[in-house]
């Protein structure tokens, strides 16, 4: 990032195969415009996203991590999204306690038919991360 250029946050997105990934696909085929700051990773379920993956992305310098899962009651595996919500709550509590930046981790329920919601979420998150500034972990050799 050279000086004078606007900071473009990098978002790593773990998207559930059945809902949010398909929703992101719908945003694409519907030609909705949204910031190109997101790097999607398709996972089979938001419940399969170990907090370790999120931490790994953050420590390696991702400016934000988005986890997208099905709406409550809609999980393809019945309860993966509820379990994800619990794991993310624990991750958030730990990040909060040490002041490491809970606000860089977003967890959203976005269904396969909500392409616009996906596009809006990425737009909102990009704006929020721009306001937050670059993730200091990116240049931290200690972690």
């Amino acid at each position, binding site marked *: 990032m050279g000086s004078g250029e606007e900071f473009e946050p990098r978002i790593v997105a773990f998207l559930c195969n059945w809902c949010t990934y398909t929703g992101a696909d719908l945003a694409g085929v519907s030609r909705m415009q949204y910031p190109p700051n997101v790097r999607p990773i398709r996972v089979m379920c938001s419940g399969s996203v170990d907090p*370790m993956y999120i*931490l790994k992305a953050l420590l390696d310098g991702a400016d934000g991590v988005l986890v997208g899962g099905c709406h409550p009651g809609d999980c393809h595996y019945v309860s993966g999204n509820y379990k994800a919500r619990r794991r993310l709550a624990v991750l958030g509590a*730990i990040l*909060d306690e040490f002041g490491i930046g809970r606000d860089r981790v977003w967890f959203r329920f976005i269904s396969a038919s909500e392409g616009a919601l996906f596009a809006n979420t990425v737009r909102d998150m990009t704006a929020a991360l721009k306001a937050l500034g670059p993730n*200091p972990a990116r*240049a*931290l*050799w*200690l*972690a």
Partner: protein
Amino acid sequence: MKDLLIASGQDGREKALSRFLAKLLEVGAVDGLVVPVEAAAGVITHVLAKDPRLVERAGRPLAPVMPSSAATVVSEIVRKRPSGRVAALLRPCEARALVELIKLKQATPENVVAISMDCAGTYDPVLYREAGGNVDGLEAREACRVCLNPAPLEDALPGMVLGLIGLDDCEDVVVSVHERLDPAVAAVVEELGLASGEDAGRRRKASVQALVQERQRAYDRFIEDARRKAVSAGSGPTVRDVSGVSDRFGLEAFARELAACTGCHNCRVACPVCYCKECVFDTDTFEYEAGQFLRKAGRKGALKMPSETVLYHLTRMNHMSLSCVGCGQCEQACPAHLPLFRLFAMASRRTQEVFGYVPGMSLDDKLPFSTFREQELEPR
């Protein structure tokens, strides 16, 4: 609960306790007994005892050290349901860790006879060994000084509780027998014809209450102090200065606390509740190629080696802090003397609060990660 008294006799309460435990083996009430013994002056280790004479001779039920958590030891023995009855002498934190291991399906509660005991705190086993078992001038471990559970939770693992708090060293020991204690063991205790310990039991209860209050104050001070340390950690050497990035932020302070980590994973081995057969940090997941290391080092200016140590500790907090009983085994096992107890105490206090979960309290409380509610934790 029924309170009885073990008379301390002439050679002291520890010998009396050893004889009591040996008796359980001798009459066949239990088939094995997990108990600390003294192998050499100041060298304490757990054994699975079969021979009552060994327990009588070398048993150190009150040894003020915890070489490893008895919960780990018991889990190793009863991972599958044992054919015989195994009794185990457990400190409160060990009993609570065992409850968590049972819930994590790493130990079977059937055929385990829990003999929990009051704990006055433990010393670092290495210092204790070097002092030849003489505790003069030694300070109890930090985890013990702020421990909120010096007395066992009676209903968590129904068995026996050996009460010591509030009764001075040469006094008798209160044995509280739970209604749900294995009938065969209860019958043996009955046959010993112990005197009633109701009076001493009442005195103990009052002392336990007072001690818990005192510990609560110590714990509150400790947490306050820990959080102050975490936020006030100043700026350290940053190899590369990125404009607009403050060098005073949480992660950096946190990472500096852990900077001396050698990646030995002893904390995980010693942790009674960290249970995976194969830890992801022992797999080739984090074995990168040279190019990957170089790219990452290039981005950060340098890369702390061994790498991924901060990720490792944060991951362990995410996986295990809900079941953390605060025994401090992680810190005791750390060759670099990292403040692991302090950091885990901070994390687990917060995460357990999220679900109002108290690890080791009850076999019936579901592990928070094994269940969920339709409506909770919103907004995310």
